[in-house]
């Protein structure tokens, strides 16, 4: 029966009325996945990413649960797909300001921030030695410093350096310009704007860690050994501030014991009303980091509900089969520092014994939850958000879709699934618009 597809519309070409370009806002795992899936189905894609590199939050993770595999394994393959596919274009250090128009024919206003380093950069690293200014290492969540001219990390794609203009004296200094043999530094760069046509838009703007300093009783920002889960990823990463050693930020000593505080912000009307969905699995995973680095170390996880749905349950089982990792049902009430020992004292309720418990440990890791990056501002246009700044599909304009943590707090696996579906809906939009 070869006539089944006869009634179907053939693949439409681009026309002035309908663009075959799909705009993807955000180049994290959701955005990159959406872009690749659409491009490999034969559509043009433009990725707009605000960082100087693609990969987003997953580039900052040491390992994925439940396989405990490195995120860069998957990113590498995706970047290779991007390098090999001329249908994908991307702009880093760029943000979408406004979306207007209609399905099949959107106009998108984009601002391109100055990188001060052009495409001639060969990543030879000579500029870094010459640069006299430093900045907190944002990739490491402020742990450690980089020079004002920097490569965010050694696996950064594209492998081009960037200058942080909040830390650089630009033309007043220009030492990097003198040493660059390739004429790749342009300190006179200014922000630019451009307009793109798109047939459909995918919002994959991702998430930020909740600001743990806003939770008064947990001591973040007050005691250096209280850190967040994302900082723990960087401590464990071989390309992190401690080259993979899990050390107390206060004194650089090895961590013998740690408490993981679940729902640090999440499931709390005073902070984030929703559940951030990944934190239980992240803490279980991070407990294995500690155990791997220090065979004598102990980890205690305080939780309300251990949320490891489906087959993730077996990951929980596997982690908890280590008798040095314990879980306790109960909320942490207070964290203080013992002035004599400089260790952290964790006071928590222990629901199962209906009592209270007190633990003295070297490190506290707050499972600080995910905030939609759209909380910092969304593109102008028909993009509807719920009270927590997640994209509300039902009220967002036709032809505009969300994927990953722009839509809800989700894990990497779900982000990839969402992204693939968003790419499908973007293609449907273009095809349907073309047939009208």
């Amino acid at each position, binding site marked *: 029966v070869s006539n089944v597809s*006869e009634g179907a519309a053939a693949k439409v070409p681009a026309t002035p009325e309908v663009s075959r370009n799909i705009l993807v806002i955000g180049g994290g795992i959701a955005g990159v996945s959406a872009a690749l899936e659409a491009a490999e*189905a034969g559509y043009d894609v433009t990725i707009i990413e605000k960082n100087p590199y693609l990969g987003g939050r997953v580039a900052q993770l040491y390992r994925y649960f439940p*396989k405990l595999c490195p995120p860069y*394994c998957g990113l590498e393959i995706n970047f290779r797909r991007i390098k090999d596919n001329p249908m994908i274009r991307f702009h880093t250090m760029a943000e979408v300001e406004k979306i207007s128009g209609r399905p099949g024919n959107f106009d998108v206003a984009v601002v391109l921030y100055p990188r001060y380093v052009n495409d001639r950069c060969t990543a*030879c690293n000579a500029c870094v030695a010459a640069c006299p200014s430093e900045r907190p290492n944002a990739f490491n969540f402020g742990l450690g410093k980089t020079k004002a001219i920097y490569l965010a990390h050694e696996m950064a794609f594209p492998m081009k350096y960037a200058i942080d203009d909040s830390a650089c004296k630009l033309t007043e200094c220009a030492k990097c310009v003198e040493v660059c043999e390739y004429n790749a530094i342009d300190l006179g760069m200014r922000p630019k704007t451009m307009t793109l046509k798109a047939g459909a838009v995918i919002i994959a703007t991702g998430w930020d860690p909740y600001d743990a300093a806003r939770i008064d009783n947990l001591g973040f920002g007050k005691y250096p050994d209280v850190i967040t889960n994302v900082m723990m990823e960087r401590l464990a990463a*071989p390309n992190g501030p401690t080259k993979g050693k899990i050390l107390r930020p206060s004194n650089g000593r090895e961590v013998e014991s740690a408490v993981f505080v679940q729902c640090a912000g999440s499931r709390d009307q005073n902070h984030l009303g929703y*559940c951030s969905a990944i934190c239980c699995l992240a803490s279980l995973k991070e407990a294995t980091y500690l155990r791997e680095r220090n065979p004598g170390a102990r980890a205690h996880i305080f939780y309300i509900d251990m949320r490891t749905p489906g087959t993730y349950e077996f990951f929980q089982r596997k982690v908890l089969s280590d008798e040095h990792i314990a879980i306790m049902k109960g909320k942490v009430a207070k964290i203080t520092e013992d002035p004599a020992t400089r260790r952290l004292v964790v006071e928590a309720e222990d629901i199962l014994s209906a009592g209270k418990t007190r633990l003295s440990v070297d490190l506290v890791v707050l499972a600080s939850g995910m905030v939609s990056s759209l909380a910092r501002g969304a593109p102008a246009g028909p993009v509807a958000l719920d009270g927590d700044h997640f994209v509300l599909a039902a009220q967002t304009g036709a032809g505009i879709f969300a994927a990953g943590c722009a839509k809800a707090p*989700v894990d990497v696996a779900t982000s990839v699934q969402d992204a*693939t579906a968003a790419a499908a809906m973007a293609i449907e939009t273009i095809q*349907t618009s073309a047939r009208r």
Partner: protein
Amino acid sequence: MAKKTGVYVCRGCGIADAIDTQKLVRLATAANPGGPVRTSPAFCLEDARLIRSDIEQHGVDSVVVAACSLRVNTDVFRFEPAFVERVNLREQVAWSHPAGHGETQSLAEDNLRMGLVRAHKASPPKPYIEANERTVLVVGAGAAGISAAISAARSGFGVVLVEKEVELGGYAARLHKQFPTRPPYEGLEATDIAAQIRDLRSLPGVMILTGSSVQEISGEPGRFSVKIQGGTGATEVTVGAIVLATGWRPAGPEKYESYGLGKYPNVVTTADLEAMAAKRQISRPSDQRPARRVAFVLCDGPRDDAHLAYGGNVSSLVALKQATYVRAQHTGAVAYIFYEDMQTPGQYEYFYKSVQRDPGILLSRAQVRRLSEDRDRNVVLELGDTLLGGDIQLVVDLLVVATDMVPSTLDGEGALGLKYLQGRNVPTTPFGYVDSHFICFPYETRRTGVYSAGAVRQAMDLPSATRDGRAAALKAMQSIEKSSAGQAVHPRAGDLTYPGFFMQKCTSCGRCTQECPFGALELNEKKNPVLNTNRCRRCGICMGACPVQIISFNDYSVDMLSSMIRAVDIPEGDEEKPRILALACENDAYPALDMAGINRLQYPASVRVIPVRCLGSVNSILIADAVSRGFDGVALLGCKPGEDYQCHFIRGSELLQTRMGNVQETLERLALEPERVKVMELAISESDRIPAMLGDFVNVIKAVGPNPMKGF
């Protein structure tokens, strides 16, 4: 064969500081008679045009760029249709070895020699392009299947939708209400499956076959032949790709015996309760009286191992939803939910909170200790581990046990009837879910052109199944587009090459057909392997499997790899200059070696690295070759095998482990020490381990002593 090769030795980024590039130029000139050899302070900048002009004006059709890693400047050094070979002098030589050292120079020269061999041996791809059918077969018309069919039809593809029931909609159509999807995420919502079905019926190019099932599928992406049996007879269609969306069934009552299911009439499953709610009749099966006191047990405690994989976050939400059904249906009704962990991720937390606020719904962590029935056929629960202070007894009208969602792939031979040597079902995990690397490429199955959606992948809610249908349809359409262009699909998307078989030498052992992770190879009546090209993912595992080495790609062949090995200069009689061959997985180990360079870590210059498509593509004869040729050691750098496999070709690193037995036998036969060949796990993020890992291996080799085969 390659015809005219140009060689371009870059001096930039510290290369010329570390090695004598003039020597490389002389080496290339001698080895490449008739072709241009040039050098530049930075070929990636203006001088890229020198390469282009050699191609356009001087007939160069094969380019060797000896500069940075192939991982960077991919676009700059793309000169289609010329063949491009990248020789890594920057990350893996200049940045990772002492400048000006003789061994650093030897490494650079060997890398260049190997690159020249590869350029000379590679031939251009001859894409396999046949006419394709732009139709997607969707098996299963539940939420996932309907969504897939709509997506494919709207995107301009034909659709054949096969459903075994008479009605469309699957379980979605039997749902009373669905979980909240809109702020404030508190109220239950009607499903929109009926509207979806209407939408589907209005689309062009959709053939819907209900009361039908797929009997047999043969062929390959682009051209699958499908036999379908319906109530009114048999149909045969040709489709380009397939979406498997056959959903789930509730687990049988035997799994819930300890909860009294099948024993007491007033113990039912959540699937039963959903049906009662849809009929507005939540009553006791024993006497049809309204069920006013209803308890839900999530069966998620420590003794409920068997249920965990199939419930997921869904069973918590189902219980919360059904508790509100109970409350809505009978005035004064009370519902209890007993759980170990309440799983309401994301915005579903707001739904949980709203249910908690209802004074008629009591939620507690608890485990059922004992269960019985009283004279009125009420169910008597004895609960322990509660948050209510000690053990309690509770009498209810109706007990509802959370239903497992058992994937239909666990039943029989699955729903596709694949006429494949490797079996009729798609390969599954031990839980019965379709096997894929579910984090990175969730919709892939191990049967190219077949994509899974919905509850055959994992237990999921309705919006997720709808999303899945969309996504799997896209993958199916992609597979059709890619095969139409003669290109591979994920993960080597766009690759135009495919394995060729030198059949005169085939011994019909069939190993390639067994080891292919994707079932791409069938046996013909003479027991010879036949490649279904569009099923092939181009991993080269068949090449590694073949005991007589008759399988090769145009740009990746046995002859090429073995000639590259032979191109390496092996110094004799110098114990301080051992030579180690490292075969490195191109996706993980090779980039990790680059990272070591980017971080300016130093590792032994005695190691010669050849990237391989997958460790599974490494033939044990190649390893034996290297040892006979005089290499003192061979390191195989790849990813983690086993349950948590990372291999993008699923079985590559695992298969290599099994082949190591052959390698050890060969070493024994040659009277060589077993330590000379070693498999090492190296993840992409572990560049920091490289200096010690390779350093230790070199020390072991030095202790064992030089390979006595040198010079033979």
